[in-house]
Every structure is written in C-alpha cells, then in structure tokens.
C-alpha cells in the first residue's frame, strides 16, 4: 500500500506531511517517560520484525499479492504511540533505502499506515475490548478484538488511500474506493491471521511484554483494587 511519487498532488501530500510530522513530534513527547530500559530494545526488534514481515508478499486472488502491515501488532505490543513511531521508522527506512514508497508520499504513507492503521484502529480496538473484557475475560477479549481490528486497520488504511487519490484528482472516488476496499478486505484476512498468531505466541511466552494486555497475571498490585 506504499504510495509512490506522482499519485498525490502537492496539497494532499503536503497536508499529510504536516499531520504525520506533528503526530511524530507528539508521539516522541508522549512516550518519553514510558521508555524504560527494556522497552527500547523491544521497540527496535519489533520494527526489525515488521520490516522483514513486510517483505513477504503472499498471493491473493487474481494475480495480486498482499503483505503484512504490522501497525496493530506494534501498537498492541508496545503501546499506541510507540507503535506509531515503529511504523514511521519502518516506512522511512523503506522509502530512503529501498525506494518503496515515494519521498513526496512519505507523509501520506505514515498517515495511512501509522495513524489510520495504527493509532485510530488501536483506539477503536480498545473501545470494543474494554467492555468485552468484563464479559469473556481479558485474554479472550484482547485476542478477539485484535483479530477483528487488525483486519479493520488494513481496510481503513486502504479507504484512506483511496480518498487521498480522489482528492488529488488522480482517479475518481467511485472508481477506486470499491476496488481498494475490495482487495484489502482480502489482504486484511492475512493481517488478522498473522497478528493474532504473533500475539498468541508473545502472550504465551512473555505476557508482560504485551502493553495492551491488562491481565491479572501481569501486575497484581495494579488490579488489586478491582479484585477487592
């Protein structure tokens, strides 16, 4: 979903550079006292993992391929703003070293894959997870809402991309929107499978490394008030 140079007009990519740049500055400010010792290597390795996973295009119907995005996984493991920073880093490396995504479109790509698929989708996931947690338990609530909203994250990002292409006058909205959302609804299934699988693995081995997991095994002191 990396937009190349030439697809967006200056007013669109300029605006999105502003939004993504502002969000990056705010994210750095926001995470600064949450990054204690062990969080920084986790941040680096999650980014490295997402970079590698994004190289693995899997075939879907009709001579098309898709690849893992990782925005929801990064936000769930590290926290939403740390996850956003990871996506912004991966996209910047891909742009400068691999010519994957245009430099003019970098702000738009960070908007689509870091803000829409990351921050926005993460908070939508939390909105559903919170009430669900009281009903079916934290672990099941987290896994099921992450499964659904990692699919949502990819579809929303593709919708944002289609809207940007339309605003830029590249291609009419009613032509691209159904096509983009259609293709990415299929790719999103892969996203949901990979994200859920990776989350199950980390929850099994190191639940303390999952930021979005508020389970009782994690910090007894934090939940003591609720239990009593």
């Amino acid at each position, binding site marked *: 979903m990396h937009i190349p140079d030439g697809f967006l007009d200056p007013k669109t990519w300029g605006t999105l550079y502003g939004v993504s740049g502002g969000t990056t500055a705010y994210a750095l400010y926001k995470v600064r006292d949450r990054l204690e010792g062990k969080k920084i290597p986790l941040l680096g390795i999650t980014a490295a993992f997402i*970079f590698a996973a994004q190289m693995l295009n899997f075939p879907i119907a009709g001579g098309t391929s898709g690849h893992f995005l990782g925005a929801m996984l990064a936000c769930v493991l590290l926290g939403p703003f740390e996850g956003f920073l990871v996506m912004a880093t991966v996209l910047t490396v891909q742009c400068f070293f691999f010519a994957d995504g245009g430099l003019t479109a970098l702000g738009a790509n960070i908007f689509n894959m870091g803000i829409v698929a990351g921050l926005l989708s993460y908070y939508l996931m939390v909105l559903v997870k919170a009430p669900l947690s009281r009903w079916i338990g934290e672990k099941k609530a987290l896994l099921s809402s992450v499964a659904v909203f990692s699919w949502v994250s990819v579809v929303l990002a593709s919708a944002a991309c289609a809207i940007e292409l339309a605003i830029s006058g590249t291609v009419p909205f009613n032509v691209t929107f159904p096509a983009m959302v259609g293709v990415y609804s299929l790719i999103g299934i892969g996203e949901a499978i990979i994200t859920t699988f990776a989350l199950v693995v980390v929850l099994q081995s190191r639940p303390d490394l999952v930021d979005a997991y508020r389970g009782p095994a994690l910090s007894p002191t934090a939940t003591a008030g609720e239990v009593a």
Partner: protein
Amino acid sequence: MAIDIKKNLKENKGLWIFLGVMLVVAILLGVFVAPWASSSPDGLEKVAEDKGFTKKAEEQKPTWNHSPMKDYSFPGVKGEKVSTGISGLVGVLITLAAATAVGLLALGLNRLHKRKAPTEGRTDAP
C-alpha cells in the same frame, strides 16, 4: 538486596533470550523467506494497473533517487534470490538501528526533562 539483583538479572536474561529469538526469526524471514515471496503486484499497484493510473507514477521522476537497494535487491549481486536475501538482512539491521535510535531520542528528551527535577533518594548509596 542481593536476591533482588539476582532476580532482576534472571528476569532480564529471559528478556534478552526472547528478544534474541525474535531478531533471529526476523533475519531468517528476511534472508531465507523473502526471496521466495510473491512478486505479483500488491493491492494498490494492481488497482492502479486496472484503473489505468500507473503511468502517473511512471511519468514522475522519483524525488529521492539515491536508494541503495531499489526494489529490495542488493547492488552488485547477480543472483536475484541472493540479492533479495542480502537486502533483507541489511534492511532488518538498518531498521533495528533506526528504531533503537528513535527510542534513545525519546529517552534523551526524558533525561532533558528530568534534569531540572531535584535528585531524590540517595540514602542507599554505598
């Protein structure tokens, strides 16, 4: 106190093993799986082909034309699979370094912020 330190070390050892395994998996994916990934156009590229706006990108000169590993191939390496594998390894390491740098930058902001606050609780110093 001694028990605390031992416990801490043990916990951190587990963490480093976990992170090490995660990094090895990332490198294995980038080096040995990525060369065999599907080379069909991705979702956006396919839509651009079908709806006929691929030329918009082709007409445009890239604004950044100095990417050393264009299309995930390492320069000067003949075999396509080997070339992709090496670029995968290099990319994983660059991304690891870049994200760690971003984390350290945020931590630096925190130190800067805290420097003004008074230092407290030095009673346990040796």
